[in-house]
């Protein structure tokens, strides 16, 4: 028993966090409402649930010693439910009053870009992101070296995780306060860079050249229109376009390469792979060939005309006059490894304390 008691500190470590910390939270009120609700069986993720997740994350942050939380404002879709959720007194008490960034709201992706910049300028030690792959792509474009805690608010995502927000908040807080060192808590991600003449953009998971003529409703679900696919990583258990690569040659998030797949109409090639291309939608995709994509070796495309989808959303329209290249970059955004943070905290007894003899 003596050994066990020695494992308990008489001081609650987190009552005096190693350093004051600021954490930002970005939740996209528009995520999860695209045409995939019609073309597949994707569900709608309610904004009230996003607000509830934010409060649970704040409870975790507060328990880890974070006292300053910045929130991206919106025109009411999440902020309204957030206030209602904050007023609920069940669960751990939440005394931290999150502050909304003073910025104009445009109800577009520009809000996410601007909020990320302002959080970084304010010295955020971490940014919790609630959204899909597209939301995370926007944050990643501006977050620099500030690590992200990537939370999925939908059924069609590869980059963020489906994870309980309370635990996520705790992990983000432990990192931001320095209670768990960054070297064990943070992972470097890869990304894909595309250049179309003078325009450059990024994708975090997959970049797909399609025969869709227009950006239109953005989503990609028709496997017959896929030309080429590039992935930074691809789980064999992925959902979405990266699942195609995941069933050919799975690529981990840490592997120093990606995958480049040339697709073909299923009537033109005997090589096919069956993949969950969207929630509830499993398609056969024709495969012409595939190979590893190595960093520093841009692939120049010579397509006819169509669109380029970044993380599953058509973004760039091109025609034969455009010069397009795709490159894998190993120096993408940092993300917080929730399991690693909490394992480290457990090993170092960060969350233990000895409350004294019971009365």
């Amino acid at each position, binding site marked *: 028993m003596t050994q066990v008691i020695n494992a308990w500190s008489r001081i609650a470590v987190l009552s005096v966090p190693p350093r004051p910390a600021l954490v930002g939270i970005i939740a996209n*009120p*528009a995520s999860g*409402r*695209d*045409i995939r*609700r*019609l*073309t597949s069986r994707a*569900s*709608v993720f*309610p*904004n009230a649930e996003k607000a509830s997740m934010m409060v649970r994350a704040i409870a975790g942050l507060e328990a880890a010693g974070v006292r300053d939380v910045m929130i991206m404002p*919106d*025109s*009411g*879709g*999440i902020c*309204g439910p957030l206030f209602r959720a904050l007023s609920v007194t069940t669960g751990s008490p939440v005394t931290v009053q999150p502050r909304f960034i003073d910025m104009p709201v445009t*109800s577009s992706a520009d809000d996410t870009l601007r909020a990320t910049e302002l959080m970084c300028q304010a010295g955020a030690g971490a940014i919790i992101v609630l959204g899909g792959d597209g939301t995370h792509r926007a944050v990643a474009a501006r977050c620099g070296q500030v690590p992200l805690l990537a939370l999925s608010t939908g059924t069609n995502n590869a980059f963020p995780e489906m994870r309980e927000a309370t635990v996520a908040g705790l992990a983000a807080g432990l990192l931001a306060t320095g209670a768990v060192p960054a070297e064990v808590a943070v992972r470097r991600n890869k990304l894909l860079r595309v250049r179309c003449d003078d325009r450059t953009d990024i994708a975090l998971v997959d970049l797909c050249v399609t*025969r*869709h*003529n*227009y*950006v*239109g*409703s*953005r989503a990609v679900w028709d496997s017959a*229109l896929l030309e080429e696919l590039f992935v930074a990583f691809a789980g064999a258990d992925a959902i979405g376009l990266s699942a195609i690569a995941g069933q050919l040659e799975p690529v981990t998030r840490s592997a120093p390469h990606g995958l480049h797949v040339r697709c073909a109409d299923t009537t033109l090639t005997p090589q096919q792979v069956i993949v969950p291309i969207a929630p509830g939608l499993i398609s056969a995709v024709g495969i012409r060939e595939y190979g590893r994509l190595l960093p520093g070796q841009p692939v120049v495309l010579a397509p006819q*005309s169509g669109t380029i989808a970044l993380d599953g959303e058509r973004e760039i*329209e091109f*025609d034969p006059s455009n010069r397009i290249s795709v490159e894998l970059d190993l120096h993408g955004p940092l993300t917080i490894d929730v399991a690693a943070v909490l394992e480290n905290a457990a090993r170092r007894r960060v969350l233990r304390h000895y409350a004294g003899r019971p009365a």
Partner: protein
Amino acid sequence: MSSSLTREGLLQAYRTMRTIREFEERLHVDFATGEIPGFVHLYAGEEASATGICMHLNRDDYIASTHRGHGHCIAKGVDPVGMMAEIWGKATGTCKGKGGSMHIADLDVGMLGANGIVGGGGPLICGTALASKLRGSNNVGVCFFGDGASNQGTIFEAMNLAAVWKLPVIFVGENNGYAEATASNFSVACENIADRASAFGMPGVIADGFDFFAVHEAAGEAIKRAREGGGPTLLEVKLSRYYGHFEGDQQTYRAPGEVQKLRETKDCLMQFARRVTSRGELTMAELEAIDVEVKTLIDASVVKAKADPLPKPEDLMADVYVSY
């Protein structure tokens, strides 16, 4: 659906959007003279919505419209010359001059009518959709409504009815940001009208109303689903009107330069022209030729409307009741 537009389809889309724009811009000028009776609510700026949706409809599909109905009428195939005469209150108008702007209806082309009752179109379109279902046809009904109407009980009741009876209805929420002078983010208790679909167990989708291709694609999927027996969809189209709620509205509730910025950066006709010409699908010369033809048509419609006779007093009671 995005790749299904032929060259003829692109030309038709541009012609329809340009006709609506020219019609509304002309009314904006002419209404200020005080010669036009009643009220007009202009659709300029929202053309991609009516056009992108109605291009998927057949003559025997029905639409129910709103008080801002000119664009829906033109996109569904109502004759603009008859519409102009109707708005001028002339006997040659679509409804013999007795309806005016807010009651233009033409059942022959599936246009159930513009509607002064906010949210009044929902129950009407459920009626046509039920008829379609009982007859075993594959016709669909489209209910256009605004962000103000999205808060009306009639719309909720219609969505519920369409969902439980699995009716072939597409509810198109044209969210232009203002219910008269009240901002939708003040009066709509959720960020997106589309979010309300989940309460009725139907898909809710958002489309960019400045982008014809985005609306056309989303509407195509929703209409295909309805024709195939998949039931109703709520499609929210985010857009903006270039003029006031009604002509004469001073719009003190809008930010300075708000409309000008939209015209310069997001205008649906501008975006459409830039995209189809940059890809070589259509030429600027072809689009300019349509502009000239449309202007000639609208000019002629105004000349004719002004010259046409008013309804006669003895026609007052005609067409009031319909025999079954």
